[in-house]
């Protein structure tokens, strides 16, 4: 572990050094905007060399007769608003003597003036268009953003039956807007910052000011500020840099594509991080219980939701330990199997030439391959792969005597169980845990499984997410919070926010349910 850490530090250090060098090479400080239009355009050309998508439109500003130029990156702007609200207004609007020169006749909401070239460069790259006027020592940036993007649709990975059918998309400000729609309160505060040295990426921290602990917000803010990376393309990348324990198997933050999930987490006092250009939102800090809570839990009636909750915990156990238990039972502790089952397992096993571990590994690997193949292929083909894999390979493998019938049952139920978990990251982690459990079970039997379980619990207990305990409310026991862990009590009984998430306000609703 130590060795890995050192290696990791060495690598990151080199990266930082390299980054610094590249930054110095690529972005020399060019100072401020000059008065002459020609000089300015020349500077611009030199900044954006070999950029055919940079459009420079020169024209005469009708009101003053000045020469002017509008610059933008085509594809990142909304052409309609450039043509109608900017160019038309500037070129054809009749002269109005009473107007002051700086009061441009542009009908666009967000208009800023700037002098710094570095600022201008960033603005252009973000889809603003820049207006230069002859003789003015400043440039105007116009908010004409409009890049290609998909419509807001249901999330594929976190489908829900009764929840909202809006998912986050790949543009940060729209995602923020979706959250604002969910929580239209002035307490929803945001901190905007930029991450990425080579390519900047806007990251927004959202939290409810009257709930979230300021020190947690500060901690997250600091971690983001300390980041020194090339570029962030995805929320998943960002979480890797922010995690408390990068070598843990378990996810320490939730990433979600659902605004309603994110909003409910915000309401519990947690903090959201929206990353521009990524369709998922990070939530911190989280505990193990949050990975078992689905959105539908709160929109279905509580007995049903409770049943689902228990099912998930059972499924989690099955997904992690069932193959291990099976291996342990048939290679060490034969006595625990009921006699009739032994006789049938014995018959199946006698036909299989491999030891149980190899048999299990073979099937598990096949299953993981099938799953991965199904994900990558388009839906109709993916289904075919599932059928071919599941039925044909499974059946044929049994008949060929490569694996036993019961092993197919065990592996298949493990797979089904692992798909029940609502959170993809957690499901993937548990699928991984299964392999070491299988190895240890084949060497130590049931004792090995118990040891695995203990190790897992020890790890859970010491794990932190943003410095907060990961295993609350189970390990530092908060009995009051158990209303929403293994079971889901009626919503009206959850009068207080969970103790396990430290927040500024404890009370959630009035003291009594109105019947």
């Amino acid at each position, binding site marked *: 572990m*130590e*060795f890995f850490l050192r290696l990791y530090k060495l690598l990151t250090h080199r990266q930082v050094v390299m980054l610094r060098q590249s930054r110095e090479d690529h972005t020399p400080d060019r100072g401020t905007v000059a008065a002459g239009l020609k000089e300015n355009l020349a500077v611009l050309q030199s900044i954006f060399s070999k950029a055919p998508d940079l459009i420079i439109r020169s024209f005469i500003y009708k009101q003053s007769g000045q020469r002017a130029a509008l610059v933008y990156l085509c594809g990142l702007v909304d052409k309609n608003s450039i043509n109608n609200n900017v160019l038309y207004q500037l070129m054809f609007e009749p002269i109005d003597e009473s107007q002051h020169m700086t009061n441009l006749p542009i009908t666009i909401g967000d208009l800023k003036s700037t002098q710094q070239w570095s600022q201008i460069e960033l603005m252009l790259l973000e889809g603003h268009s820049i207006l230069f006027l002859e003789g003015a020592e400043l440039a105007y940036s116009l908010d004409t953003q409009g890049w290609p993007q998909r419509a807001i649709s249901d999330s594929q990975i976190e489908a829900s039956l009764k929840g909202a059918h809006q998912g986050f998309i790949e543009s940060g400000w729209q995602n923020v807007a979706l959250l604002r729609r969910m929580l239209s309160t002035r307490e929803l505060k945001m901190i905007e910052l930029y991450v990425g040295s080579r390519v900047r990426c806007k990251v927004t921290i959202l939290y409810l000011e009257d709930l979230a602990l300021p020190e947690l917000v500060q901690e997250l803010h600091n971690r983001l500020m300390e980041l020194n990376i090339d570029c962030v393309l995805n929320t998943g990348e960002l979480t890797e840099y922010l995690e408390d324990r990068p070598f843990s198997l378990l996810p320490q933050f939730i990433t979600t594509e659902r605004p309603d999930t994110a909003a409910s987490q915000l309401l519990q006092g947690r903090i959201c991080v929206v990353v521009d250009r990524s369709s998922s939102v990070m939530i911190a800090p989280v505990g193990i219980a949050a990975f078992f809570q689905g959105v539908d839990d709160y929109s279905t009636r509580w007995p049903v939701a409770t049943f689902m909750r228990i099912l998930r915990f059972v499924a989690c156990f099955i997904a992690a330990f069932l193959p291990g238990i099976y291996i342990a039972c*048939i*290679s*060490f502790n*034969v*006595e625990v199997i009921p*006699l*009739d089952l*032994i*006789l049938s*397992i*014995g*018959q199946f*096993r*006698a*036909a*299989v030439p491999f*030891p*149980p571990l190899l048999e299990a590994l073979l099937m598990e690997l096949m299953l993981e391959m099938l799953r991965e193949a199904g994900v990558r292929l388009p839906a109709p083909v993916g289904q075919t792969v599932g059928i071919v894999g599941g039925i044909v390979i499974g059946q044929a493998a049994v008949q060929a005597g490569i694996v036993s019938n019961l092993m197919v049952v065990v592996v298949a139920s493990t797979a089904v169980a692992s798909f029940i978990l609502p959170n993809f990251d957690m499901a993937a982690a548990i699928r991984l845990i299964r392999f070491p459990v299988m190895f240890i079970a*084949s*060497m*130590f*039997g049931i004792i*090995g499984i118990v040891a695995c379980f203990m190790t897992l619990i020890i790890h859970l207990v010491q794990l932190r997410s943003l410095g907060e305990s990961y295993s609350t409310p189970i390990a530092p026991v908060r009995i009051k919070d158990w209303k929403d862990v293994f079971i889901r009590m009626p919503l009206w009984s959850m009068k207080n926010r969970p103790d396990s998430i430290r927040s500024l306000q404890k009370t959630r609703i009035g003291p009594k349910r109105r019947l």
Partner: protein
Amino acid sequence: MSRAKRTMLLLISVSLLLTGCKDRLNLENVTLILMEGVDLDKDNHLLVYMSSPVFSKEAKKKNEETKVKAISPRDARGYFEAKVSALVSTGKLQNLLIGKKLLQHPYWYKLLDVLFRDAKVRSNARIIMVDGDVDDVMFFEPEDKRRLPLHIAKLVDTAHERNLVETTTLFTMQRQIYEKGVTPYITELRREPGEIRLMGTALLNKEGKYVTSLNIVENELLQILQDEKYQDLTLTVVLPEKDKPGTVFHMGTVSFYVKKVNRKIKTSYRGGQFQFTYEIGLPIQITERLFDYNVKDDAHKLEQMINEQLNKQLRNLLQKLQKNKVDPIGLGLFARAFEYRNWKKVQNDWPEAFAKAEIHVNVHTSIKDYGEIK
């Protein structure tokens, strides 16, 4: 962490793996003994038998059976390993067959020491006496039954549910041997041509020697006396008052289902002997009656007639037990509970005191139900 420490850690973890693999035993490499048999041959040599399932599809038979000559059951294990295809395990032992010949010899149960001592042995294995040679049962392969060990296990369990035989497992055997107030009893079976038949219960004395047997009907009555009725207990008695001549059938037959046994025992000590008085309340349900009877007017009289027959049968059974000096009922426990001082004097020779005891039985049946017709 220093280099030395790291190397140590690596070595320790590797050595863990090495020791771990030692006791691994895959299911297909196990010869599960489902039935073990112990008997004596005509020269009084100990014979140990085993029967275990065969998993391979290539084998024509479902079971393999082996017989070896050995000093003790543990000694036999080595010979077994030399003969059967895989490694022997007694973790799923179902039945332990013991030959009647072996049971003639006192302290035979010391041979079971290995089964009591080894933690991996299934302590719920049934101990069964074979009336005849164990050989005949072990190598018997009925074509219309499942594997013989499982067939016998099921047979014994279901018969016990119907109160036809007593069952004793390795676990309960321990108690019966070392408890002073009770004598051991085990299931008894016999190989008949073409099938296995349960004969009832074999009664042993304190030394484990075979004394006598109870047939199936006697066993039902014993279970009433023990207050250990399981599911259905149906008794059939012939009332001599209602028997009619001139037909081959017993026309005085009445069968009834015992719903519950309310047993009360009064224990006392008088004149140098223990006295036990049984008051047995039996709520019954008539299931069969071959004679005509007006139950509306004379239900009580019918109960009386049944009482009389039952009293007679129970007294006969008790006499048989006393004559043979065996106490499978466990009346010694009552003696110890209620007459401790007197019990202390006889505790080491309870069967003798039991034989001398005076036992009264009074059955009080009450008919609760006549079925669909009166």
